[in-house]
Each structure stands twice: as structure tokens, then as C-alpha cells.
């Protein structure tokens, strides 16, 4: 009788193993051993990332690129489909075309972040043991870092939440993982801001680890008001998943996020004896660059150059850029008031240097985003608007 007792396993139990081996033909029954062999590879050969990810999205043929047929088997009340073409203004001949240039699937993605975590832990132990905190200026630490850098956690947390409906609504598997990884990176950055604050509080007992003061700044201080309103709109104001992704990663974060992280906190921290914050802003910058590559593939390689719908897609991307650029410029202009909070450091925070910093970020954005969709922009005029209140 073929009832297996506990612990009897077909691979190791001699009786069962013999019966199994007897059933296995000498020659394999098919020659095609590559899973997903029908998928068009982006690179030379089909990658593990493509094998594991492509066509996991079970869409029917009336959503471009779908392999299935027929309607969804259950819909929302009123008839909204599980996924439908009404979820975005953009059009494509194939939603499955996008590839993340970093070829991230879940395993390599978490491995990279786990490595970053291990290194973070060791760095913090060394930093604390060496007493490096002694070089950090108290005002910078307690005012700028605690409250104003602290407030960026809400910026990142809000952007993280803007991805929820994107991850729900987007129309293909490779886009879905790109959007999810971008989202986890955002909440990670937010958590690292708080982690840094908890860490400093352990070293400096007078330092408040509570998020209260930072939240107060985020909610009340004019420095962040336009940014906060923008984030709220991205998070809950719109539902076109492409507009959210593009607004966040095509306009707002490359300008506001880049400036705040790289040109302000990273650059200025070093002037105040703070070698801790750059450790974390560098992590955020790494995440930014990886996301940027994936977003560029989606919007430039796939959608702006779609064989059939390039024109209409570019038109939308430009319309969205106009809409979100105006708000982003306001957010950056508002943020300029932060320089009033610190003493002027020649060559770093004087008007010329700050204007140059703004120019760097704006020019990068024009080159890497605006030009790719033929968005007409006067970079110098943008710089001037952002810096108009700088003293």
C-alpha cells in the first residue's frame, strides 16, 4: 500500500525511490529547457530577471501585450476591471516591454539592501566608538538636522505612499516590480532619517528622538509648505499611475529631492562637522540613481519611443511635466529659505554657490529628462525663479 508513514521521503526511502526511478524515462520528453523561451530578450540572452518576471501579469489581449483572452472573472462594483486601459492616459503597443536595467528581481534587490544594512550597522558602531559625534556642531545637530533634515522623512514617506495606487494599477509585471522597489527605497530613506535621529539621541542624551519637532516643521514651516502640498497631491490627488510615477520620479524627486539631499544636506553637513548625514544621503542617492535608470527605460525607451503611440505619449509627458514642474519650482523656491537658518559659508552657502548648486540640479534634469521628451525649458529662467529670494 502506498501510504507513506511520517518521515518517509521519496528521494531517500529506498523502496519509494526505486519505484519512482522506474517511472522516469531514459530520455527527456522535450528539448526546450529554457523557461519563457517565447519572450523577446532585451539583452543578448534571456536573463533570469526576465524569465522570472515577464508575463506573470495575466492580462488579456485587449490590454497591449497581454497573452490571455476574455474578460476579468470578477470586477469592481459598477464594472471597473481588475486592470484596464482606462487606468492611464498613456498608450503602448506592449506594456511588457519595460526592463529594469539593473535586472532586479526580488532576490538581488533584497540582497543589495541587506548588504547596505550590514554595512550601516558596522559604520554606526565605529562612528560611536570613535566619538566622531564630537565634531558635529550643536546648532546644526539640534536645529537643522533634528528638525529640518528630520522633516524630510515625511517627504520621503509621502512619496512612498504615492506608490500604493501605482503598484495596484500599473499594467505589467516589470513595471510593477520597478515601482515597488522604488517605493521600498523611499520608505527606507524615511526610516533611515529616523534611525539617524535615534542614533544621535543615544550618543547625545539632550537630543530629542521624537518625531514631533520635525513633523511640526513639515506641517507648519513655510520652508516645506509647497513641497508638502505637492507630495499630498501626488499621494492622494491623482490616480493615473503613469502621472504619479512621472510626477514623482520624472520631475519632483530629480529636482527637489536631489537638491535637498545632495546640494543641501550632504554638502552643508560636512561644513558643520557632520560626517554622519552624508553616509545616509549617499544611500538615498544610490537608490535615486538605480530608480532613475529604470524610470528612464520605462518613459524614454518604451513609452516616448513607442512605435505607434510616441506622439501622444510625449504630449502627455510634457503636459504632466508642466503641471508638476510649476509646483516643484515653488517647492524649491520655498526651500531656499533654509539658508537663512545657517551662517553663510563662503564658497558653499553664499548666493553664487547656492545658485550654482541649483543650476547643477536643473541642468542635470534638463539633460536627463526634459530633453528626452522634447519639453521646452529655459534652464536659467528656472534657476532665477528658484533663487529669486536668496540673499
Amino acid at each position, binding site marked *: 500500500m502506498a501510504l*507513506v508513514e511520517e518521515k518517509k*521521503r*521519496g*528521494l531517500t526511502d529506498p523502496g519509494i*525511490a526505486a*519505484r519512482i526511478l522506474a517511472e*522516469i524515462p*531514459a*530520455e527527456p520528453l*522535450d528539448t*526546450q*529547457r529554457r*523557461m*519563457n523561451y*517565447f519572450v523577446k530578450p532585451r539583452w543578448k540572452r534571456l536573463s533570469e530577471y526576465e524569465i522570472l518576471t515577464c508575463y*506573470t501579469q495575466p492580462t488579456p489581449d485587449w490590454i497591449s501585450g497581454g*497573452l490571455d483572452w*476574455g474578460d*476579468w*472573472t*470578477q470586477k*469592481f*462594483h*459598477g*464594472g471597473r476591471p*481588475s486592470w484596464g486601459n482606462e487606468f492611464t492616459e498613456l498608450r503602448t503597443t506592449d506594456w511588457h516591454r519595460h526592463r529594469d536595467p539593473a535586472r532586479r528581481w*526580488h*532576490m538581488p*534587490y*533584497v540582497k543589495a*539592501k*541587506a548588504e*547596505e544594512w550590514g554595512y*550601516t550597522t558596522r559604520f554606526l558602531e*565605529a562612528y*560611536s566608538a570613535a*566619538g566622531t559625534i*564630537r*565634531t558635529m556642531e*550643536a*546648532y546644526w545637530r539640534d536645529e537643522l538636522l533634528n528638525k529640518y533634515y528630520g522633516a524630510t*522623512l515625511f517627504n520621503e514617506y509621502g512619496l*512612498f*505612499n504615492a506608490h*500604493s*495606487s501605482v*503598484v*495596484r494599477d500599473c499594467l505589467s*509585471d516589470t513595471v510593477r516590480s520597478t515601482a*515597488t522597489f522604488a517605493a*521600498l527605497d523611499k520608505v*527606507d530613506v524615511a526610516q533611515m532619517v*529616523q534611525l539617524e535621529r535615534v542614533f544621535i539621541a*543615544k550618543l*547625545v*542624551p539632550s537630543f530629542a528622538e*521624537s*518625531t514631533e519637532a520635525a513633523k511640526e516643521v513639515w506641517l507648519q514651516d513655510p520652508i516645506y509648505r509647497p513641497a508638502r502640498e505637492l507630495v499630498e497631491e501626488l*499621494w492622494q490627488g491623482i490616480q493615473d499611475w503613469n502621472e504619479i510615477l512621472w510626477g514623482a520620479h520624472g520631475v519632483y524627486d530629480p529636482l527637489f529631492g536631489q537638491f535637498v539631499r545632495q546640494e543641501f544636506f550632504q554638502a552643508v553637513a560636512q561644513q*558643520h562637522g557632520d560626517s554622519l548625514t552624508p553616509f545616509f544621503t549617499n544611500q538615498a542617492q544610490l537608490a535615486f540613481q538605480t530608480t532613475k535608470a529604470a524610470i528612464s527605460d520605462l518613459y524614454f525607451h518604451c513609452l516616448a519611443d513607442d512605435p505607434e503611440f510616441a506622439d501622444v505619449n510625449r504630449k502627455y509627458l510634457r503636459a504632466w511635466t508642466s503641471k508638476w514642474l510649476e509646483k516643484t519650482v515653488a517647492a524649491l523656491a520655498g526651500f531656499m529659505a533654509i539658508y537663512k537658518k545657517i551662517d553663510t559659508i563662503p564658497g558653499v552657502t553664499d548666493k553664487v554657490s547656492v545658485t550654482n548648486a541649483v543650476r547643477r540640479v536643473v541642468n542635470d534634469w534638463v539633460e536627463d529628462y526634459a530633453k528626452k521628451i522634447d519639453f521646452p525649458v529655459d534652464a536659467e529662467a528656472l534657476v532665477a525663479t528658484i533663487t529669486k529670494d536668496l540673499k
Partner: protein
Amino acid sequence: MALSTATKAATDALSVNRAPTTVGPQEVHKWMQSFNWDFKNNRTKYPTKYHMANDTKEQFKIIAKEYARMESVKDERQFGTLLDGMTRLNAGNRVHPRWGETMKVASNFLEVGEYNAIAAAAMLWDSASSAEQKNGYLAQVLDEIRHTHQCGFVNYYFAKHYHDPAGHNDARRSRAIGPLWKGMKRVFADGFISGDAVECSINLQLVGEACFTNPLIVAITEWAAANGDEVTPTVFLSIETDELRHMANGYQTVVSIANDPAAQKYMNSDLNNAFWTQQKYFTPVLGMLFEYGSKFKVEPWVKTWNRWVYEDWGGIWIGRLGKYGVQSPASLRDAKQDAYWAHHDLALLAYAMWPTGFFRLSLPDAEDMAWFEANYPGWYDHYGKIYEEWKALGCEDPASGFIPLQWMIDKGHDIYIDRVSQVPFCPSLAKCSGSLRVHELNGQKHSFSDEWGERMWLTEPERYECQSVFEQYAGRELSDVIVEGHGVRADGKTLIAQPHVRGDKLWTVDDLKRANCKFADPLDKF
């Protein structure tokens, strides 16, 4: 700012604490709840009739980086086992063929469930108002991506190592041909993502994950191991290590509405519908995969169901929540009838339509038949005799030109598709619960196989409009459908599906064509 002041403050502090220190994940997580802020329009983008409270908790207190570390440790162990140990043992091929075929279906269909759960968890992340819960749902989104990739990896691994890679290598394309696919989409895909967010959470987490993943992902590993498959336990048990956080998310969703008086109006009907939706497919399909898709049996499916579904889920989740107004699902009685018989009904229909699969099926042999009769008294007279008749008519032999589907049509055993669950149903042969109902609405005919689904459709017809396989294929010849759906192997002529798991006598497109079997829609008779 004078550096000396800063130096002094920090130096003073260091005199208190200069040991190497770091920050643990829970020390960050305890601040998560304060990451949220209120603003106009801060509400979910998805329709719901519930109001979720904003103070619910994340029971496992995960932050992104520690999540990544934990998952990475899981992956190192899992992929390390597969890529080194299992490969050296040739474990991917030393699997009983019946089970090797079962895993074509089980892993791919679970993959679809996991994939849709990415979107489902994202919708709940959007719907939850508590920051901890949002964080918990985000981790779940990541987990579901992990599981999608893990399930894909099982098929990917078997495609490389198992002696019949066909089906493992292209399930994502050829799965859409057969009659099991749409039902799977209802229960595993659309049921998780299309509807009230809380209704979807009850489907996905409170019922799908807390109840049915235990047989599907845990109990299945014992069947796998018994049949020589050590690949599946290595992957599936690791998948399940994420599920407890999902169950906790689902439970916290219930907690978040438990104190909303309005929720009482909807919760029990949503729970009953979710339970019925999930069991309508899971119960027959899992039972069929375990009992008919294995050579070495672990225990009767109805016992597995009784333990995990009725006693433990029913008692520890639903029974315990009774004092908060949660009621035992009214459809439980019918579900129990299905737990005993529905998988035998479905196995018969699946075999009758074997060419539409992306896997090989086999007839129960004498040893199997004795086991079925001992555990399901009455099985032989009802099902066993039909299998014997089919065998005698040559259903396994390509030379016979005999397809059991033709036998069903000729004998008047019409197969209907339930509009709501999309599960096939043969009223003249079924021993499961329910009965055939055929209605016409606004010029269109619809069939249903039970009162629970019929009510869902009568209440909300615009939600259930999916065409059935018979409506889609009516009038077409079987081999023509299979060829269009890519159900053919690399040689361009042999079918992926086969009615046996032998190494020889494989059916080709031409064999199928000779049988001249045509699809018909039984609703045309009304």
C-alpha cells in the same frame, strides 16, 4: 556657531556613553506610527463601504532594511539548497512523474495568486490609514513579488532538470487554453483585487492566506516529499514564512473595522462570500492535485481540509472572533460536501478535457482505486467505473482516436461553466454540493452551479461577465484551439498535454485532429 560649544556638549555626552552602539529595527519601528499626517483628501482611492481605524498595529515590527536582511537569509538558504545540494543529487528529475506534472499546475497557479496579491496588498496599503499597517502592507507587497519569483523559480528549475520540461517551460502562455484557468483567476487573481478593499482583504488574507495557504503551501510539501520532490518543500516552506505577517495584516484589517458599527452590516456577508469564493476553487483543485496528481498518498484530502480549514481556521480564527460579531460562514455545510466529493468531480472533468492542459494527467490505477474506495466509500461505483470504461475505450492510446470529452457529449453529460466561479460543473455526474441553474438576462444566458454564486450574480451582475471556455470555443475543433493556444511541444507536433505519464505513446496534433472532437456550448440547448 562656535565649534567649542558643540564639542563640549558631545564630549559630555560621550562621557556618559562611548561604547560602540547602533540602532535596532524595532527602535526605529516604534516611531513609524507618527510618520503619517492628516490632510484634506487623505483617504483611499479605492471604493469601500468600510471605515478603517488609524491606530492598528504591525505585529512583526519590520523596517525596510531588516526586512531585506531577513529575506536575504531566507534566499541564501533556499537558493543555496537548490543550486548546490539539489542539483548535485539530481533531485529535480527524481520526482514521480505524476507529481512532476502536478507541480506544473500548482506552482504556476500559485504564482498567479502571488502576483495578484502584489496588487491586492498595494490596494490595502492605499486603504489602510495607520502608518504601521501601511508599512506592513508594503512588506507584503515585496513578499508577494518574492513569492511570484519563487513560484516561477520552481517551474524554471524543473524546466531545466525534470524529464518533461514542456509545460514547466511555457505555463505563462499555454495555461490560458484550459478550463481550470479562469476559475483560478477568479479565486486567485480578481477575487483579491477587484472589489471593496476590505472585501478583498477578507478574500486574500483572512480566507485565502490564513486558511487555504496552509494546505496549499504547507501540507503540499508533505505530499511533495512523499513523491520524491524536495524542490517544492525547499521553496514553498520558505514562501510560507512570509505568510504569517500577511495573516497578521489581514487580522489587523479586521481589527481596524471591528469597532465600526457600520461594518457589522457588511462583514458577515463579505466573509461568507469570500469563504465560498475561495473554497469553490481551492477545495476541488487542491484535492485533485494531491490525490490524483500523486502516486504516494499522505492522507485523504478531506482530512487535510477538516484539520486546516474546519478545525483550525474555523476554530482559531472564526470561532475566536465570534464575540466580536463574526459568524460561522453559512456556506460551510455546502463546503463540507465539496470537501468530500468536489475534487473527484473535477478530476473527472479535467481528465475528460485533458488535451486543453499544459500538463500530463493519468488514470487512477488499481492501487489508487482501492485507496479511493477505502477513504471515500462509494467512489468506485460512481467514478471508478467511468475511468475503467475510458481506459477500455483506449483513452490513453493515440491510435484509439478516443477523447473522453466526446464520450461526455455523446452520453449527455453536459459540462457547464459557473458564470461566477468559472468552475466547470457536470450536473449529471457531480456529487459535490449545488445544482444547475440557467437564467436569461437581457438576452444572454448564464449558468450557475450553486446558490451562493447565483446570489452574487443576481445582486451584482456587472461584476461577473467573463466569457466561459465553451462560449469562446463553441464550434471549433479541439486541435485547432490547442494549436492557437501554443499547447504543442518544441517538435511542433507533439502535444504538451497527455492522458498518461508514460515516456512513450505521446499524442500529436494529428492524433487529436483524427478524433474530430468539437466544442459545443451546452447553453445553446436552452
